[in-house]
């Protein structure tokens, strides 16, 4: 899907033009202090059609999807939904912000895991994510991060070595195919 304010409105089920830039979304954002572009600025960029900047920023991938911005908006703009829409549009249009590469890889690896298994296989998630991220940024600390947790998790019986799979994985595959094939449209 090409980026446009109509596309964002449709994906996020909202009206970005309603925003009058009070900044309440940014004031309450738990990760606002780390963002290169604040939530209210992202909404403004969408209003003014500056999608290059809105999609190519770290902020949309720093968002923790806590929904505080949307809950507090006096104009009921679904700000969290706008950030969802910008993430989707960025990936669909191959805009990969350099600083956020690791988070983007993580979300893609997570989704592929579900596509294959129907349920999250945690061990596979860790393995595939770390190797993919390592190939991209060669970060040795990331590779070994949390490796000391594994034995602690095993002794607590918190590790599924095999992971679960749904029985009807073929259907899960078809659901994914249909959602990705027809040019994703928003429903929420």
């Amino acid at each position: 899907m090409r980026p446009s304010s109509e596309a964002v409105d449709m994906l996020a089920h909202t009206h970005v033009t309603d925003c009058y830039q009070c900044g309440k979304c940014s004031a309450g954002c738990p990760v606002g202090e780390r963002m290169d572009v604040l939530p209210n600025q992202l909404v403004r960029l969408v209003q003014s059609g500056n999608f290059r900047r809105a999609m190519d920023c770290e902020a949309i991938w720093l968002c923790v999807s806590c929904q505080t911005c949307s809950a507090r908006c006096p104009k009921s703009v679904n700000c969290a939904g706008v950030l969802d829409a910008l993430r989707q549009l960025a990936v669909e249009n191959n805009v990969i912000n350099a600083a956020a590469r690791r988070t983007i890889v993580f979300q893609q690896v997570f989704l592929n895991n579900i596509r294959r298994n129907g349920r999250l296989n945690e061990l596979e998630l860790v393995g595939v994510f770390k190797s993919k991220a390592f190939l991209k940024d060669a970060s040795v600390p990331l590779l070994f991060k949390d490796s000391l947790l594994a034995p602690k998790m095993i002794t607590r019986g918190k590790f599924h070595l095999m992971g679960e799979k749904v029985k009807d994985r073929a259907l899960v595959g078809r659901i994914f195919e249909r959602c990705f094939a027809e040019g994703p449209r928003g429903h929420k």
Partner: protein
Amino acid sequence: MQIGYYPGCALHGSSNDYERSVRVCLGRLGMELRELDDWVCCGATAAHSLNAKLATALPARNLAIAERDGIDQMLAPCPMCSMELIKAGQALAASDALRREMSEIVEQKVSGATGVLNLIQVFQQIGLERIQKAVVQPLSQTKAACYYGCLLVRPPEQLRFDDCENPTSMETIIKALGAEAIDWNYKTECCGAGMTMCNEDTVLDLAHKILTDVAAHGANCVVVACPMCHVNLDMKQADVERRYGVTHRMPIYYLSDLVGMAMGASGAEMGVDRHYVVA
């Protein structure tokens, strides 16, 4: 009493202590859980970040199974799952076009009629009086900080559960157990747990702020009703302490742990001995 049950990936994975706790606790209250057949992941943050349609279709698949099997009410103890299921269910119930489209995508008729409940709502349904009557070991030494995090209360228009800025439903239950519920500032601030693997910096910072506020208000434990909050505040607590050079040593309980223990279950029975920070 029987209720449908959607465990979600976390409760069948590294948060299986939460599943055990919920099962033991609700079992003692006479509530039997009927697990949804062949359920699929709700898609979580990855789905709503990358494909809006999929973020409805995956929950719709689960709702379709529930409808097929005659399950009208379903507990989803993970707030990420319950939020996604509720959101999809409402969108389906509101739009004929969406019902038709999703029924095609998931290859089964789906209307969104299934009621989805979080853990607190199941306790509310059981009733405070009944819980109070079952208490044999009042938790008089417990000073709990009830932590809701993000998705138990947000988005409020869809969830229609408690006050999204100052919820008190967990406090009500905790007090019925004979425990004290402290007043504090961070009960609906997100801990960022979904980002633990790809952006640890942010997550440790958020967890540290939450744990610091808990201690500043005199709590001796935190109560959660979310597997991700628990992983983040319990398993990652040692990382927070190392990063910020502090000692929190704050035990984190699932709400069902405390209800179960007040009803006389041992810590081991509730799986509390498998937590990382032990009281």
